[in-house]
């Protein structure tokens, strides 16, 4: 859960962070060869960035390799970074370009079917119903793990553009405008993608037995 909480907390913390500790201030220090500033940025973004790459690639090892390459490019190009855009937008745009190129090469393209993803013993529990019935009561640890594994299977099944958009909205908590900038598309396209992503996610969860 640590990665997820870190990802969510990041956006709240960013607003509350003193100016000297902001991403942009750290980047200015990285440009002046401060390795400690770079390490702070890596610590801040490692989990969100690996998850971001995973949303494109659906392979944990490849996602780590691409996240590593992204950080290296950030380091190499630190002197070229101008804080006209948020640092995170710049970072994720670099990562998105790397991931899209990797997907184009076709080496990492996986064809998944829900049957394969579920395996021989699909869970069959109705997590969404339990969640709706539980009101604001949090899920137990076992239920949380079950929900996360189930969601992972369902998310992996979504088409590329819907999966990446859904992860950016739900995991990274990005506004549509920022996603549009990273992906180089319009906000209307993002609205359509997220709508379809949720429809398909629900279908996938139904097949997986999480929702009727």
């Amino acid at each position, binding site marked *: *859960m*640590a*990665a*997820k909480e870190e*990802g969510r907390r990041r956006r709240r913390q960013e607003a509350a962070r003193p100016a000297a500790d902001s991403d942009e201030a750290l980047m200015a220090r990285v440009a002046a*060869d401060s*390795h400690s500033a*770079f*390490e702070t940025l*890596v*610590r801040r973004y*490692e*989990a*969100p960035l*690996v*998850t971001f790459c*995973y949303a494109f690639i659906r392979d*944990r090892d490849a*996602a*780590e390799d691409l*996240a*590593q390459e992204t*950080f*290296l490019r950030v*380091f*190499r190009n630190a002197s070229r970074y101008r804080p006209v855009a948020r640092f995170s937008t710049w970072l994720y745009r670099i990562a998105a370009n790397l991931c899209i190129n990797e997907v184009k090469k076709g080496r990492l393209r996986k064809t998944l079917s829900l049957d394969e993803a579920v395996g021989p013993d699909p869970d069959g529990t109705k*997590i*969404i119903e339990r*969640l*709706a019935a539980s009101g604001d009561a949090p*899920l137990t640890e076992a239920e*949380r793990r079950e*929900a*996360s594994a189930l*969601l*992972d299977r369902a*998310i992996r099944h979504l088409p590329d553009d819907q999966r990446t958009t*859904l*992860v950016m*909205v*739900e*995991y990274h908590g990005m*506004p*549509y405008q920022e996603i549009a900038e990273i992906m180089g598309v319009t906000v209307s396209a993002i*609205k359509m993608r*997220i*709508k379809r992503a*949720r429809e398909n*996610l*629900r279908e996938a969860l139904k097949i997986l037995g*999480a929702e009727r």
Partner: protein
Amino acid sequence: MTGPLTCENVHDMLSAYNDGELSDEEMRAVGEHLSSCVACGAESTRIANLKRLMKYWEGIEPSPSFREKVVERTKREIEGRRIIRVSKAVLAVIAVILLAAGAFFLGRHLKQRAEAESAKDRPAATSPQPDRRPRSE
């Protein structure tokens, strides 16, 4: 936005509505529609539940060695840059020395050649000339 929204319009807007991504006017119009339409209200609740469920997706926790690998690679990069900077400085010094030496030897060579040429032009002035004046005794 003109006129009241239809269920079809609202259906298309519900995802963005639940993300708070509509304009103020649209948010208000969709909210009003939901308060009087059971079907759209149920659909909106389903999206809200899906969003709540999504909060339980943990994403990917990087492996313990991830940060170490990134830091190691960038440190190597810094070291590489340092070596390049030092090499450039050394090369610059060598280039300056070579240029200075070249200028010195070229200068000396030109000077020697000039001296040799001027020496070649002066042989008559240096050899003794017979005195051809008539002697008056």
